[in-house]
C-alpha cells in the first residue's frame, strides 16, 4: 500500500480527491452558513463542484510533487540543476525533468486518451448506423459526440506536445528544454484536467459540442458543463507554458552554427505552433471562464436579457479555436517535411519557403476566425473580408504541397515503401483532401449551405488526420528506434496503414457526400426520408476498420517494445543529429556537443555533412 502511494501519479490523484472534497466542503459550509441552498441535482451546487475541482487541481500538483523544487526554492533551499532519473519504468509516473521522459509521457498519455476518445466515436457511430434511436438517448448521444470532440483535441495537444518535447531539444542539440521544471509542470497539469473532463460524463454530461456556445452552455442545468469548462481552462495552461518553453529553448539553446535557416524544418513548425499556443490559448480560456462565471455568479456576458451578446462568445472562442487548428496541424506538416527528404534521398525542395510558409499560416491564421461565423448573425459586412483572409491561407499551404511534390519528384524511394514513409505520403494525400475541401467553406456563398453539415465533419477529419494522425503515426514508427533501441514490426505497420487509409477515405468522403445532401452535424438521428441510412451503415463499418487498424498499431507497439529487432544505429540513414549517436539516447542527450557545418537536407551531395561532433567534451 505504501509502495503504491509512493508512486507520484497515485499520490497526486489521492490528493486531488481530497482537494475536491475539501473544496466542496468549504463551499457547502459557507453557503449553508449564509442560508443559501447548498445541495443541487448533483449532490451539491455547481459552485462547490467548480471550487472543489479547482482546489483538487492544485492539490494534485502539490501531492504529485511536480512543484517540489519551487517550494524548496521558496524556503531558500538549493536544489541540484538536474535530477537524475532512476532507471526503470517508475520515472514515467513522476516529475521527471528529462525532456525525453516528458515527451514519452505526453505521447503515451495521448495514445491512452485516444483509445477513450475513439471508443466514444465507435459508440455513437454504431447508434448512427440505423435510423431511429437504438440504444442511446439523444442527450447521451450529444454528450458522447461532444466528449469525442474535446477528448480528441486533448489527444492532439498531447501528441504534438510529445513530438515537440522529445524531438526539438535533440534536433537543436540542447541537453534539455530551457525550463525543465516548467516542462514537467505543463505535462502534469493535464492529468487532473483529464480527470475533470472525463468526470463531466458522470455529472450530467455536456450537450453543447466541444464549442460550448452560450446561451445553451449557460442554460444547461448540468454540472458536467462546468467541469468541461474547468478542464479546458486548465489544459490551456499546459499549451501556453509548453509554447513558452519551446520558444525559449529554440531561441537560446541551439547548437553552435545552427543559424535560423539551418534548423531542421520540424523546429520551424514547432516555433510557428508555439507562437500560436503562447498567444491565442488565453482566448478560449477566457471565453470558457466567462461562461463559467455567467453560470456561477449570474454575470450577463452572453445573456441578451442582461445586455450581453451571445455572438461575442463566438468571436472570443474562435479567435483561439481557429488558430488552434494550425497548432494541431503545423507540427504534423513539419514531420512530413522532415521525413520526405530522408526517404526520397533528396534535399527538401525550397527549405526556406516551407519554413516561411509555417510562419505565414500561423500569422494569417490570426485573421480568419470569423469564417466560422458566416451564418451567425454577426455584422454582414464582415463576411467578405474574412472570406478573403481565409482563402489567403491557401497560398502558404499550397507552397507546402508544391514543395513536397517537388521533393518527392525523382526521389529514390525504397520498395517496399518503409512504414514511416507510407504514413508520410498518406498524410500528404489525406491533408490534400482536407485542404482542398476547405475553400468551399471559406467562401461565404457556398458556406451558407455547407456550414454545420456533415460535409464539415468530413473536411475537418481529413485535416486532422492528414495534419496530425498520419504524421503522428509516421513519427512514432520513425523515432521509435531512437527512443527504445528497437524497431517496430514493418509487416504490422503496413497492415495498420493499408487498413486505416482506405477506410478513412471511405469514411470522410461518405461524410461529405451525405453532408452536401442535407445531413446536419451533431444530430443524434436523421430523417429516414433523406435516405442516408445505407451510407451511415458504411461509415460505421469504416469507423470500426479504423479502430481495428489502430488496435494492430497498439499490438505492434507493445510487442516491439520487448521483442522488436534491435536497432541502435542510424536505421533510416538520416543526416539529422539525433541519428548520428547510438539509440536509445543517453539521459543528457549528446555526450559530445555538435556543431552545424552544413545544410540539414543535403542528401545526394557527396561529402556534405550537417553536423560535426566535438572530439573532446
Amino acid at each position: 500500500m505504501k509502495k503504491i502511494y509512493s508512486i507520484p501519479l497515485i499520490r497526486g490523484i489521492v490528493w486531488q480527491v481530497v482537494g475536491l472534497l475539501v473544496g466542496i466542503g468549504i463551499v457547502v459550509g459557507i453557503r449553508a452558513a449564509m442560508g443559501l441552498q447548498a445541495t443541487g441535482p448533483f449532490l451539491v451546487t455547481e459552485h462547490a463542484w467548480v471550487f472543489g475541482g479547482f482546489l483538487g487541481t492544485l492539490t494534485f500538483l502539490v501531492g504529485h510533487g511536480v512543484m517540489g523544487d519551487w517550494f524548496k526554492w521558496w524556503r531558500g533551499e538549493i536544489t541540484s540543476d538536474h535530477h537524475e532519473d532512476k532507471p526503470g519504468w517508475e520515472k514515467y509516473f513522476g516529475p521527471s525533468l528529462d525532456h525525453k521522459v516528458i515527451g514519452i509521457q505526453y505521447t503515451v498519455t495521448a495514445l491512452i486518451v485516444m483509445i477513450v476518445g475513439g471508443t466514444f466515436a465507435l459508440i455513437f457511430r454504431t447508434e448512427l448506423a440505423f435510423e431511429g434511436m437504438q440504444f442511446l438517448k439523444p442527450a447521451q448521444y450529444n454528450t458522447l459526440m461532444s466528449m469525442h470532440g474535446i477528448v480528441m483535441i486533448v489527444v492532439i495537444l498531447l501528441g504534438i506536445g510529445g513530438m515537440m518535447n522529445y524531438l526539438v531539444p535533440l534536433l537543436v542539440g540542447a541537453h534539455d528544454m530551457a525550463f525543465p521544471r516548467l516542462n514537467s509542470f505543463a505535462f502534469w497539469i493535464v492529468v487532473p484536467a483529464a480527470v475533470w473532463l472525463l468526470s463531466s460524463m458522470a455529472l450530467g454530461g455536456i450537450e453543447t459540442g466541444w464549442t460550448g456556445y452560450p446561451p445553451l452552455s449557460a442554460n444547461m442545468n448540468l454540472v458536467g458543463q462546468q467541469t468541461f469548462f474547468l478542464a479546458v481552462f486548465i489544459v490551456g495552461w499546459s499549451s501556453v507554458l509548453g509554447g513558452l518553453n519551446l520558444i525559449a529553448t529554440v531561441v537560446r539553446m541551439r547548437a553552435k552554427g545552427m543559424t535560423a535557416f539551418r534548423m531542421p524544418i520540424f523546429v520551424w513548425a514547432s516555433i510557428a505552433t508555439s507562437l500560436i499556443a503562447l498567444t491565442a490559448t488565453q482566448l478560449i480560456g477566457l471565453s470558457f471562464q466567462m461562461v463559467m462565471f455567467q453560470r456561477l455568479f449570474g454575470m450577463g456576458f452572453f445573456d441578451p436579457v442582461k445586455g450581453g451578446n451571445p455572438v461575442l462568445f463566438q468571436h472570443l472562442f474562435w479567435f483561439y479555436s481557429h488558430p488552434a487548428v494550425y497548432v494541431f496541424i503545423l507540427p504534423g506538416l513539419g514531420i512530413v517535411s522532415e521525413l520526405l527528404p530522408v526517404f526520397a534521398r533528396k534535399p527538401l525542395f525550397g527549405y526556406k519557403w516551407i519554413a516561411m510558409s509555417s510562419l505565414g499560416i500561423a500569422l494569417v491564421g490570426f485573421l480568419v476566425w470569423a469564417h466560422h461565423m458566416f451564418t451567425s448573425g454577426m455584422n454582414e459586412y464582415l463576411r467578405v473580408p474574412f472570406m478573403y483572409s481565409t482563402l489567403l491561407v491557401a497560398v502558404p499551404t499550397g507552397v507546402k504541397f508544391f514543395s513536397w511534390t517537388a521533393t518527392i519528384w525523382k526521389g529514390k524511394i525504397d520498395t517496399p515503401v518503409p512504414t514511416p514513409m507510407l504514413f508520410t505520403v498518406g498524410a500528404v494525400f489525406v491533408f490534400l483532401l482536407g485542404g482542398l475541401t476547405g475553400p468551399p467553406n471559406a467562401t461565404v456563398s457556398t458556406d451558407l449551405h455547407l456550414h454545420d453539415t456533415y460535409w464539415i465533419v468530413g473536411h475537418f477529419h481529413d485535416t486532422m488526420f492528414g495534419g496530425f494522425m498520419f504524421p503522428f503515426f509516421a513519427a512514432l514508427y520513425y523515432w521509435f528506434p531512437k527512443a527504445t533501441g528497437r524497431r517496430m514490426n514493418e509487416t504490422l505497420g503496413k497492415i495498420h496503414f493499408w487498413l486505416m487509409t482506405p477506410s478513412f477515405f471511405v469514411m470522410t468522403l461518405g461524410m461529405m457526400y451525405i453532408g452536401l445532401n442535407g445531413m446536419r452535424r451533431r444530430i443524434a438521428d436523421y430523417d429516414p426520408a433523406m435516405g442516408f441510412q445505407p451510407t451511415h451503415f458504411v461509415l460505421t463499418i469504416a469507423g470500426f476498420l479504423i479502430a481495428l487498424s489502430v488496435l494492430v498499431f497498439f499490438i505492434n507497439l507493445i510487442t516491439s517494445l520487448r521483442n522488436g529487432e534491435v536497432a541502435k544505429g542510424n536505421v533510416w540513414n538520416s543526416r539529422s543529429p539525433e541519428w548520428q549517436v547510438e539509440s536509445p539516447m543517453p539521459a543528457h542527450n549528446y555526450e559530445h556537443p555538435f556543431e552545424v557545418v552544413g545544410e540539414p537536407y543535403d542528401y545526394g551531395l557527396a561529402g556534405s555533412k550537417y553536423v560535426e561532433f566535438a572530439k573532446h567534451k
Partner: protein
Amino acid sequence: MIHIVVVGILVIVFAVLTYVGVNSVDLMPVQASAQAVPIDWMWNWQVIAISFLFALIMVPIFYSMIVFRRKKGDTSDAEHIEGNTPLEIAWTVVPLIIVVAFAYMGAYSLGESRRITDTNAMVVKVKAQQFSWTYEYPQGFASSELHLPVWKQVILKMEAVDVIHSFWVPEFRVKQDVVPGRVTEYRITPMLEGAYKVRCAELCGSNHAFMEGPVIVSSQADYDTWVAEQIEIASAATPEGRGRKLVTENGCLGCHSITPQPGPSAPSWFGLFGSQVTLADGSTVTADEAFITESILDPAVKEVEGYSPTVMKPFTFTTEELADIIAYIKSLK
C-alpha cells in the same frame, strides 16, 4: 522532360475524370430557391478547382514513386535539387491570383444570393425555440408549417426564444442562425413547388436532431387557399379552435404529433385524453385534465416512458387557456 509531359497529360486526364466522376453522383439536393442558383454556380467552380488541384499534386507524387523508385542494387542518393526560386515564386503568385479571383467570385455569388428582387416582399416572423419552429403570418395567424408561394420573394424575420438555432432548408441552400436577443433576416425566393423541411443546423439541446418542420412551396392559388383556411381557424370561437390556435402559436406542434404516429421527441396527442399513459417508473396514469395541466405547467414531474422530461420547458397559461388546450386535445381522436 518527357516525364513532365507525361505527367502533364496524366494530370489533365485525371482532373477531368475526377470532375466527371464527382458530378456523376447527386451531390446536392434539388435547387428549390433562386438563391441556390448562384451558390451552386460557385460550388461547381470549386469542384473544378478541387479536381484539378487534387490531380496536380497526386499524379506527380504517384508517378514519381512508381517511375523513379529505387532500383535493385542502387544504394546511391537521388539527385541533389535544393529548390528553384522562379518555380517557388510562380507557385506562390499564381495561387494568390487564383485565390483572389475565387474570393471575388465568392463575393459576387453571395451578392447574387442576397439580391432584393421585391422591395415589398412579404415578411413572415419566425420564432425558434427548443425544439420547434413557429411562423407568424402578416395575415394575422400563426402556423407550425411554413407555406410559401412559388416565385415570390419573402423575408423571414427570425427570433430565438431560448438558445441559438439555425434556419436551414437544404433545398434552399441558405442557412441563417437565429440568435436570442436579436432579429436575423432570411431572404428567399422559392422556385420549385414541393414539400421540404427546415432543419435546425445549430446544436440546440437534447432533441436538436428532431427540430425539423414542414416547409411547403406551392402555387399562388394553393397558397391562397391555405391562408384562407388558416384565417378561418384563427378566428374560431369554439374552445377547440382557441386551443388549436394556442398550441400552434406556442410551438407545441413542433414536437407533439396530432396523428396516431408519435414524433421522435414527444408523445402524440391523438387519442391521448382519457387514455392510460405509462410512466418511466412503470406505473400508469390516466391522461385527464389534471395530468395534462401538470404536464404543461411542470413537465418534469411525471416522466412519460420513452421521453425525457427535461426536454420540454415549463409553459405558463391562464386557466381559461388551459381549458381551451385540453378541449383541443380532447377533440383529437
